[in-house]
């Protein structure tokens, strides 16, 4: 009985399943050698949730204390030198990464801090004695600390919705509407950057700190500075990992996707069957044959794709990601209005209202004539991007394929922030991953955008409009 009770008490305890990065469907659809190659590239570049790999080619701040070797002291107790850098964060056992000097070239040596005297700033480390470091050699102590902290914070607070790999499919995700963001395409909705650019660290930090009203993303204001910074870095890293996988899949799925090969074989067979007997077309080859051929083309020892092209693809993808995320942080990617906010008066709002209802702005087509998010576009069947198929449901969809309602502007709920600057940016650059287009630079002048901002932000405070004939409003603007 006592044993039974003890068993009952511990039901559900113990180790859960090990956390794993989920694999994209498009990766699963690849031929097995191509699938293996993608998984290996991911493992090499990013590791697993338990053994993270800090790929230095990516613009992620992996963390650690940067410094340099000062005077090298030889006192017979291992290698000792003066440390020129911040003393905080240097602890015994912390891994040591050489950035320049003779030891940096020796990639095999794994060094760690043996002891550190904060008063005299004397550092002793363990590792091979040769090659000896010289004064001025640069190194990082505790490299990867930020990523590790980020993982801890992420697993505790974010994973259950956003998933281990940032695929937006954590265990609680299915209960939510709207669904949690899938970071793996590298697209974030509420940013301060131009349309094609990545978000900045500040953008992600704002979302973590203040949450997104109207969604299940709560505010994590009191997470603490270091934790917030680390989790933002971790999310950037996850997003890069996801986009890396996506881009490799995109590259390979043309020639090496099982699904594509099967589909084309089926199509050819159907055509063959439909053809008249007297045309005598050649019998198409079976999917099995085509697959074998594709596998051979991928794995060939001498001129196989894996040997010849794929390393270059990995290289280019890493470069592409590094450039994209670095450029996102560039001040020139940031949207800042060229004129101050146009005074928020009746005249400006009226201009904004006319713009809202005009063919230039066309805001009403989605957001509705009264701004209630019930425009005509919500009643249409829309085509899926890059195909002739239409979505099953009426209304707009986002880049993740989920149904999306245009914002009801009369609620005063601002998902991307309620500063006039935030609303300006939404109109200027649109909302990434959604049908909301950007109007800045081309369609509207900054002054005109401010008029629309003033109009939109006033909608919440208008008394309920009388059930008038909505057609009148359209007529007025023409």
């Amino acid at each position, binding site marked *: 009985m006592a044993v039974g009770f003890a068993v009952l008490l511990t039901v559900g305890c113990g180790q859960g399943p090990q956390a794993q990065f989920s694999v994209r469907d498009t990766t699963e659809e690849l031929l097995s050698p191509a699938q293996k190659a993608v998984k290996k590239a991911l493992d090499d570049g990013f590791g697993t949730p338990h053994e993270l790999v800090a790929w230095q080619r990516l613009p992620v701040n992996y963390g650690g204390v940067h410094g340099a070797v000062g005077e090298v002291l030889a006192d017979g107790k291992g290698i000792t030198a003066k440390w020129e850098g911040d003393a905080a964060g240097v602890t015994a056992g912390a891994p040591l990464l050489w950035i320049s000097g003779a030891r940096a070239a020796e990639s095999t040596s794994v060094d760690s801090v043996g002891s550190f005297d904060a008063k005299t700033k004397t550092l002793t480390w363990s590792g091979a004695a040769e090659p000896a470091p010289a004064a001025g050699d640069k190194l990082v102590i505790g490299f990867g600390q930020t990523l590790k902290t980020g993982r801890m914070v992420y697993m505790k*607070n974010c994973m259950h919705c956003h998933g281990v790999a940032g695929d937006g499919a954590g265990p609680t995700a299915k209960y939510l509407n709207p669904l949690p963001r899938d970071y793996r395409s590298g697209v974030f909705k509420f940013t301060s950057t131009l349309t094609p650019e990545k978000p900045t660290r500040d953008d992600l930090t704002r979302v973590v700190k203040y949450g997104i009203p109207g969604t299940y993303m709560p505010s994590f204001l*009191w997470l603490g500075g270091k934790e917030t910074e680390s989790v933002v870095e971790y999310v950037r890293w996850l997003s890069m990992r996801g986009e890396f996988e996506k881009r490799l899949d995109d590259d390979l799925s043309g020639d090496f996707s099982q699904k594509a090969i099967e589909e084309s074989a089926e199509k050819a067979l159907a055509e063959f069957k439909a053809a008249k007997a007297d045309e005598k077309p050649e019998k198409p080859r079976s999917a099995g044959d085509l697959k074998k051929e594709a596998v051979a083309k991928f794995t060939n020892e001498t001129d196989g794709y894996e040997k010849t092209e794929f390393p270059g693809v990995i290289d280019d993808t890493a470069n592409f990601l590094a450039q994209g995320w670095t450029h996102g942080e560039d001040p020139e990617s940031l949207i800042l209005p060229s004129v101050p906010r146009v005074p928020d008066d009746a005249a400006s709002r009226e201009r904004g209202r006319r713009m809202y209802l005009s063919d230039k702005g066309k805001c009403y087509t989605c957001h509705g004539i009264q701004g209630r998010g019930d425009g005509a576009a919500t009643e249409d069947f829309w085509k899926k991007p890059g195909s002739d198929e239409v979505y099953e449901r009426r209304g707009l969809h986002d880049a993740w394929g989920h149904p999306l309602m245009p914002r009801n502007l009369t609620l*005063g709920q601002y998902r991307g922030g*309620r500063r006039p600057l935030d609303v300006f940016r939404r109109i200027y650059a649109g909302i990434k991953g959604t049908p909301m287009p950007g109007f800045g630079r081309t369609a509207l002048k900054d002054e005109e955008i401010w008029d629309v901002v003033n109009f939109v932000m006033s909608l*919440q405070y208008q008394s309920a409009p009388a059930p008038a004939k909505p057609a009148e409003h359209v007529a007025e603007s023409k």
Partner: protein
Amino acid sequence: MNDSVAIVDGGFQVSVKASAVGRFWAAFFFLTAVIAVGISWVSPSMGWWFPGDGVAHSKLGREIDDLFHLILVIVSVTFIGTQVALGYVLWRGATIKPEEKALFSHGSHTLEVIWTIVPSGILLFIALYQMEVWAQYRMIKSSPKSTEPIAEVTARQFEWRIRYPARGKVLKADPQPDDVYTVNELHVPTGRSVSISLKTEDVQHSFFVPELRVKQDAVPGNTIPVWFTVTDPRMYEMVCAELCGWGHYKMKARVFAESDEDFDAWKARIAAEQFEDGFKKAAEAE
């Protein structure tokens, strides 16, 4: 010496091992009480007492603490008295000599009357004595006349969204264009009575600031005023005290109690941030 005694009860003979076992239980129950009193006695010095520094930081909170202490004294005296009596009776029963005659007090009218009237008197006293504090805490009529509504606090799964009137304006029930907003951060002035309008967007939540001794459920469909006078300008933890869903633990917020000047300066700053149009920044960047 005879170590067992036969008791005739309703015609059945029950044999009771009187000495060792009886003494053990007498000692056990007595010691339990002693340990309970001991732990309670050292609690304040071990930090197992009131939250924070152990002192209420609101005017009404101090009175609530005084009530708590009064009740604590009453129950302590009662507890110690009854435990000593229980210990004595058990010990006496365990060590009773076979030739001694037991005293039967069951059905004593006088005793029944005493232990009905005494606790009733105590309860009645507590009920009447706390009335004033309760009224000040919960009844609008008894709230301080000068109470100023400073914010609307809306709980939702899983955060607190807070709306303040603009500087120098009065809080309106409906949002105003110049209102300022914060999330998970409630700023209040100290030294005077202020109130918040508590709402919830979804399920039940509970607004709880332990160090101010303020706790009030947020009920869907209701706007509930909660008033308090914070005595010390400081930061206080604010949590949700009603299990509201799987993210209940995330509803951690802070109350910043500030002097009137600081409160005003903060509001000016937050309003400037909220109406930021980004143009000045653009000018600075160039």
